């Protein structure tokens, strides 16, 4: 009897230790550190925005950190101005549009993640300067040409900087000629458009891109043109085909089987009528 009592006490103590131990372990569990990707992008005359990506590392390697709230702050010598808040999507990415009036000649931005239950407090700084990328499409009888000028905000040319000149496509731009052209002493590139380009409706979007520059970020200037070669629409969506839905059945399949079906129905009605005749005669 006494032994049983001892075992009971022993079990109770073990359970308490296990319970308390797990509580302590949970309490001491560390938050995960977060890696932040932050780049500046500018579509000239359209918008300026930040591309944000968040990820963390676990035993399976790098994973996207989804639904992470963040705040973007602009830091000046005098003060810190909150530009707004946002949240990453399921793939751990976000696009944060910077109000045009908040972008200055030189900018110091910080992305902050605070008070998150899973991730450590983190801040990612980003400095960038404004730049002026002017692009123009010249169409004449002699040919088609793109000219682009890269100037700083004081009007000084930025020399020997690589600019991508391309046709905008769904996934990745289609390079024109060599694809990358370097600015001359006036900050200019001139690119001849010698090939014909196809598009769905004949409309094309040409782009000049200063890509992932250390000081200026990614700056993109777009031009619209209508001299593309329109593609032929091969879609059979509106046609009556073998693979179209019931509403667009080919006429042969609509008429012939229905004639057969009507014929069979006619015979069926005839047979039933005869049965009624037999019954009543």
């Amino acid at each position, binding site marked *: 009897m006494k032994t049983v009592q001892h075992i009971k006490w022993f079990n109770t103590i073990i359970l308490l230790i296990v319970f308390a131990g797990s509580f302590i372990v949970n309490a001491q569990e560390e938050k995960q550190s977060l890696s932040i990707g932050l780049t500046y992008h500018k579509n000239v005359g359209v918008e300026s925005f930040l591309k944000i990506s968040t990820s963390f590392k676990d035993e399976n390697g790098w994973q996207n950190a989804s639904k992470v709230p963040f705040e973007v702050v602009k830091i000046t010598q005098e003060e810190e101005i909150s530009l707004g808040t946002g949240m990453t999507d399921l793939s751990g990415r976000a696009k944060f549009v910077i109000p045009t009036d908040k972008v200055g000649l030189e900018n110091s931005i910080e992305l902050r993640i605070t008070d998150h239950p899973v991730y450590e407090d983190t801040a990612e700084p980003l400095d960038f300067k404004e730049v002026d990328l002017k692009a123009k499409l010249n169409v004449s009888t002699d040919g088609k040409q793109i000219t682009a000028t890269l100037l700083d905000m004081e009007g000084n040319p930025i020399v020997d900087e690589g600019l991508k000149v391309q046709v905008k496509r769904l996934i990745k731009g289609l390079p024109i000629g060599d694809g990358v052209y370097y600015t001359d002493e006036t900050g200019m590139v001139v690119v001849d458009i010698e090939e014909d380009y196809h598009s769905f409706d004949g409309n094309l979007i040409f782009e000049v891109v200063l890509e992932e520059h250390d000081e200026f970020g990614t700056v993109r200037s777009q031009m619209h043109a209508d001299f593309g070669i329109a593609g032929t629409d091969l879609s059979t969506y509106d046609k009556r085909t073998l693979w179209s839905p019931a509403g667009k*059945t080919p006429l042969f*399949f609509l008429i012939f*089987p229905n004639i057969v*079906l009507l014929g*069979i129905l006619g015979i069926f009605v005839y047979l039933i009528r*005869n*049965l009624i005749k*037999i019954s009543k005669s």
Partner: protein
Amino acid sequence: MSTYNKVLNDLAPKKFSKIGVVWVAVLSVVTLLGIIAYIDQIINGMKVTNLRDYALWGVYISNFVFFVATSFVGAITASILRLTRRKWRTPLVRIAEMVSVACIAMAGLTIILDMGRPDRLHYLFMYPRLQSPITWDVLIITIYLTFSILLLYIPNIPDFALLKKYYQHKPKWSKFYAFLAINWRGTEKQKKVHEKTIQVLAVTMIPLALILQTIDAWLFSTTFRIGWDSPNLGAYFIAGAFVAGTAALIATAFVVRKFYNMHEYITEKHFDKLGRLLVLACLVYLYFNISEYLIPAYKSTQGEIDHINEMFFGHFAWMFWFVVGGGLILPAILLLYRRMRKPFPLFIIAILVVVTSWWKRYVIVTPTMLSPLLPKQGVSEDWSSYFPSLHEWLITGATLAMALLIITILMRFVPVIPIQRTLDENGITNDENDDKN
């Protein structure tokens, strides 16, 4: 007892004997096991089967094609022999019609068993696409079932009227047969309309049967698959149905003759004729088989030659040679001898042909399914082979049992041999009634 009464006594439906009761009980148990397996399939989904990405048509579809083929027998005997005015067919017609109704009903049911979501069956009727062979199949099976039932019912009307009188001492039965007889009194006008109706029905059944077999074949040949990609498949299936249907009729006729004691009505002459018909069917089907395998083998495209090697020498070789050797060549040779066309040897041969006909459908469906044109990638190794699971066997077994059960129950209530026609063909009249008149 007058000849008239003797014929009536002989041919009127009878209660099951003890063997009959045991037979029905066994079939019911097999059916019940299948129903339990099917309920489990509904609850747990198609994962209880061995059907996977490649073998997505397996034993259920093989069984379906077998039922469709066997249902052809109704059209052969009831229609073709009727229109060619072969009088010897009379005792076999009703049996053939019963087999036909049972098989086409089970063919329709088997399709439902193969569906992952049978609760959406009505979608086939609500949203049909006439471009799809599946829609054609659903339509033709429904139509063929309806016309097969009519073909069984309408010629029986005079017999039901006879049975109404025959069972006068049993009012319930008499009432039942009176209902089915739809006021038949055998007047000249009724006979004329009746004869015309049967004639139209018989003529209609032939194209319907051909359409049924052809659409069944087109389910396969309209898909671009090795082994099925043949414009001859419609004719090939019709020839196969001719074999399966005739063999099923012979086997059923033998059982009816033995257990309903119909030796006087279904004679050795009938079996001899059916045996000859089976030889013809086997030879025609053999011709189509040679055509179906010889031409792809001659062309020897990579996929086709792999498929043929697999059938002739590979995993399916035993099934293939059992089907071709045991189900076509051997019967065709044996049945050339008169003594092999005697009832019992013919029955054994017919059973062999029915069994091989079932396996033939398995050989048509499964090897092709396992020979996709695109390479097999990213799936587990066992998906590359197929053999039915216990669930599939139980459910398939149940459908076969249910088909036999339908035939057995029909024989309980419907005369297996047309009474009125037998009387008419033998010039037997009801003397008592004549005297009274």
